[in-house]
């Protein structure tokens, strides 16, 4: 099945710093989503981005489907950005999202 790899696994930042999270996937996909899992475990939808670039405030994402990767950019990080960031793609059968193992981000003040 399709493999999803995220890097780095852990990231520690000072408030105000910028960061880039990467997601590589092993096959062509119809869908790619970025999620933020908050401390209570809830998965917050950040981007639905099968291709191209989107921006939402301090966050932006780019997916280059032909090269099988996506990037999530966080600018001017805040302590509330802390948590786990997941990348997920639709499997080849088109039936469900397959998740990477996530990047754990810790932002300190």
């Amino acid at each position, binding site marked *: 099945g399709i493999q999803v790899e995220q890097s780095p696994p852990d990231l520690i930042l000072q408030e105000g710093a910028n960061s880039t999270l990467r997601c590589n996937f092993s096959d062509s996909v119809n869908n790619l989503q970025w999620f933020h899992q908050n401390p209570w475990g*809830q998965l917050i939808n950040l981007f639905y981005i099968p291709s191209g670039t989107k921006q939402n405030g301090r966050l932006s994402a780019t997916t280059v489907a032909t090269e099988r990767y996506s990037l999530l950019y966080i600018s001017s990080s805040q302590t509330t950005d802390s948590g786990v960031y*997941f990348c*997920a793609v639709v499997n080849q059968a*088109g*039936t469900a*999202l397959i998740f990477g*193992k996530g990047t754990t981000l810790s932002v300190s003040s």
Partner: protein
Amino acid sequence: SQTIHQWPATLVQPVGSPLSLECTVEGTSNPNLYWYRQAAGRGLQLLFYSVGIGQISSEVPQNLSASRPQDRQFILSSKKLLLSDSGFYLCAWSVMGSLGTEAFFGQGTRLTVV
């Protein structure tokens, strides 16, 4: 707008007891429905998905089962819980019949088997 409800939020159950977790979706018809599990400190594993009433597909062999008695209701069950069933269970939905549509998650149930 569409909303997804999942309950209970937390649950502590003894080994060998039964389990029933419920998920309902409002504001949409014929959704794809999913159950995922997240073990402590790890990623999300797909357990079951459903494309319609009574249609359940299992991704991994386990001690759990799923049912979809109504269009917007998805239930995760076990007859006898094991310690290894502990984890965070998340229900999700996406638009029926379309590849590559956005999925949305419930708030999750944290299950501890003791």
